[in-house]
């Protein structure tokens, strides 16, 4: 019973049901040492169930969990040597910050001197050296979360699990802490399994993202892969903004695929070996890949009427209505002089074939 593949964490077909509800339908996942992997998905997608099973806080119905090359499917949580950071921090309210951080060391029977030294060390790491004698409620939310991180770092667990740790903080603080956690991960070389439903957070922080949907793993890959090469309509829709339009495959030749979309529109897209003539598909173009063009200058082109122009700070979005009533959006950096586009004006949108991802329509 050994697993010498060198993975820090490996799960095989982990399943969990609650009565008639399938919370997790067989998850296979691998993590290497030092990796930052994020479980991303909408609520109810099974990401927290998987995390809890890995932590040992719920017993899976089946499957295997290997931690550090040892089978640990049903090992009690206190024997797994993992660390966990909770969304509401889970700092012990009746203990000082010092006692909170000392807790895992006391459980490991470290001597008093070591404990004092180690607690001081991690408090320095999270840049809160002077709070040792305070109680958790006397700290701000951001400070409490830093302490929760410190309480994990102090005993150097094999993997640190984080369950939406920044979910309770406001946007500005969240942005700061995202980068801080990322730096801590890089500097300390720790292995982090992170859970979030915020796709932007996942892309900012992760080495790899494990996208989950409906109790299954949808796609695993780097943020770039998931963003530019989604392999399902769900992935394309969930990460970032996208134009997703229905079409039918008419031709699949070397390096390219030709589609027929509504209104007699012909679209050229990236080849996809899984598709053949006659398949119903959706093609996806990111709004930032769609430009306003002069007629006849782009590989893929549609004509329509500007419906709305929205300036949201950095980005300005133009919504166009196609002849068949569907909608397309193009986004560009905001400039002070404006886009020169106004609702009601006819316009051509164009984009290249390599920016067109063709996905099977499930």
């Amino acid at each position, binding site marked *: 019973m050994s697993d010498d593949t060198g993975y820090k964490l490996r799960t095989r077909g982990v399943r969990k049901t609650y009565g008639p509800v399938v919370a997790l339908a067989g998850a296979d996942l691998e993590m290497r040492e030092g990796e930052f992997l994020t479980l991303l998905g909408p609520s109810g997608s099974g990401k927290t169930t998987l995390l809890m099973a890995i932590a040992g*806080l719920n017993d899976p119905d089946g499957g295997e969990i290997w931690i550090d090359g040892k089978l640990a*499917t*049903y090992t009690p949580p206190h024997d797994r040597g993992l660390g966990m950071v*909770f969304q*509401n921090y*889970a700092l012990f*309210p*009746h203990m000082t910050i010092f006692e909170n951080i000392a*807790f895992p060391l006391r459980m490991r029977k470290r001597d008093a001197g070591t404990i004092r030294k180690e607690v001081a060390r991690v408090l320095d790491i999270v840049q809160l050296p002077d709070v040792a004698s305070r109680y958790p409620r006397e700290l701000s939310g951001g400070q409490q979360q830093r302490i929760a991180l410190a309480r994990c770092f102090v005993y150097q667990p094999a993997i640190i699990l984080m369950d939406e740790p920044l979910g309770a903080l406001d946007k500005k603080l969240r942005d700061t802490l995202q980068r801080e956690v990322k730096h801590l991960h890089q500097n300390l070389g720790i292995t982090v399994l992170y859970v979030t439903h915020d796709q932007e957070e996942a892309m900012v922080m992760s080495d790899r993202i494990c996208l989950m949907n409906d109790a299954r793993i949808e796609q695993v890959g780097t943020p770039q892969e998931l963003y530019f090469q989604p392999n399902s309509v769900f992935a394309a829709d969930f990460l970032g903004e996208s134009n997703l339009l229905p079409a039918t495959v008419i031709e699949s030749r070397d390096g390219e695929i030709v589609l027929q979309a509504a209104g007699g529109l012909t679209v050229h897209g990236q080849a996809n070996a899984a598709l053949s003539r006659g398949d119903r598909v959706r093609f996806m173009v990111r709004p930032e890949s769609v430009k306003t063009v002069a007629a006849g200058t782009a590989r893929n082109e549609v004509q329509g009427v500007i419906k709305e122009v929205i300036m949201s700070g950095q980005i300005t979005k133009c919504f166009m209505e196609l002849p068949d009533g569907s909608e397309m959006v193009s986004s560009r950096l905001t400039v002070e002089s404006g886009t020169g586009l106004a609702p009601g004006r006819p316009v051509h949108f164009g984009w290249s074939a390599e920016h067109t991802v063709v996905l099977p329509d499930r």
Partner: protein
Amino acid sequence: MSADTDSAVAPARRPRWTWLRDWPLYPAVLFLGLFFLYPTVLLLGLSVTDDADALTTQHYAHLFRSDLYVRVLGITLEVALWTTVLSLIAAYPIAYLLATVRNSTRNTLIIWVLMPFWTSFLVRTFAWMVLLGRSGAVNDLLIALGIVEFPLRMIYNFAGVMVGMVHALMPLAVLTILSVMEGIDANLSKAAATMGARPSQAFWRIYLPLSLPGVAAGGLLIFITALGFFITPALLGGRKETMIVQVIIFQIHEVLNWGFAGAISMLLLVTALLIFFLYDRLLGLSTLSGQSAPAGGRRPSAIGRLGGAAGRLFIAAMGNLCAFVGRTLERIRRPRADRPRRRVGRALVWIAGVLVLVFLAVPAFFVIPVSFTQESFLNWPPVGFSLKWYQRILGTGLWGEAALRSFVVAISSAFLAMLLGVPAAFVLVRRSFFGKAALFGFLVSPAITPHIIIAVALFFLYSRMGLVGTTTGLVLGHAVLAIPYVVVTTMAIVKGYDTHLDHAAWTLGATRVRTLWHITLPILRGGLIAAFMFAFIISFDELTIALFVTGGAFTTLPKAMWDDAILQVSPTLAAVATLLLLFMSAVILTSEFLRRRSQVK
């Protein structure tokens, strides 16, 4: 109207009438002032004046002349202390179980916990007489099993008093502890586990310290309530278990020495206050409201710090000890990574919990078979089958009349308590003003004052007002007792009410009154019904005040049962108890039904 005049009028108007904004509070305060505080002060006055209304210390001198009364106080304290300790030990596991099971399971279990609350106090006491008597069910079983040869003496002694009192007061501890446990974040134990704490370490070092405020508050409530007990020690105890309230009753009913009874009452009141004071010094009264550890405000006293340090050492030691036991057991039986582990600790909690539930819920049912006996004394097992006891109850007008009066009094006093308590609760939750904590304390103080003091004080007040022996007097007295429960229950539901709903109604054009009538009250209906039921049952089951203020002019159901029990314990009482059990169950089920229906809506 221009904006200028508006802004000129508004600031001038606001500060002048602030105290009037809190008007819904005043009727309740006034009422308790008149029927609780004033008579208590009168009683105090009585204890320091002689027959000629001159100041005297003779009653207090009498109190301490012999060691008799100090000894009785000692016994009272001892009984109260043991009741508290045993109740807390028994209540903790069941509260823990309730706090950690699924919601649906909890709702079922809690009905069994509250069973003693629902069944009349006297019914429960009789049930223990049936169970623990010389020829009772327990002795019967023990002899049949050959465990003992002769019946054990289980009542008319300290053990009997303990059983009866723990049974009566434990639900209070369960509810108090539970309310604190429900506020403990489940993630804390999980966090401890991921950091390497075994379940036992997590329990001792994390869960137990966080639940202690509930234990302390429950302990205080039980101790104070136990000080004022007399029914249980009178019926289940022997001469050695005479408690202080029995002495007060004796002084008033037999000796007619009011001044001296007042002095003993004061001794009891001072004892209760002293215990409150000590509790506040050691733990802080803020823990009573169910919040965990004080929020870094006041520094603990020296005793508190010493206790705290000792407590931490104890907790750490227990945690390590249990972890050691756990590790040793695991050496014998290794946990396996490839199949779910057995949860031995969980099973133990269930076993303890179920045993306690059986203790709480089952005894009352033993009065049912006994009520059909053919014999003329309480015996187990009952002999034959006869309805003669029921015929006797229904034959004489006494029981029916008493039941009807109890019902009328309970309905009236519950309405009165709601009328006074509900508006006060709204103000206490929604407004902040100077002295709010003190006012809250005053409104709930009748619940923690030994009932006998209220009873004696009211009796004295009524004798001057000509209210002794009137139904009105009894209704007023019961309302005094019920107000604290109405206030606390209502405050709990008002706290959970989303005031945005009111704001929404106002912006949609509803007046305050219409908002209250169409939005607030319908949403709170379930909780208000519960508060009313609480008040109803408190009055319906009340004996102490009835014993005094009825002045023998009329009787209520508990009083009739008491009078009967003092003379002789006959199966008539079992029959009454059975009927009462049926009636109470019907009332509770109805209110539960109404509550659930209002929740579904």
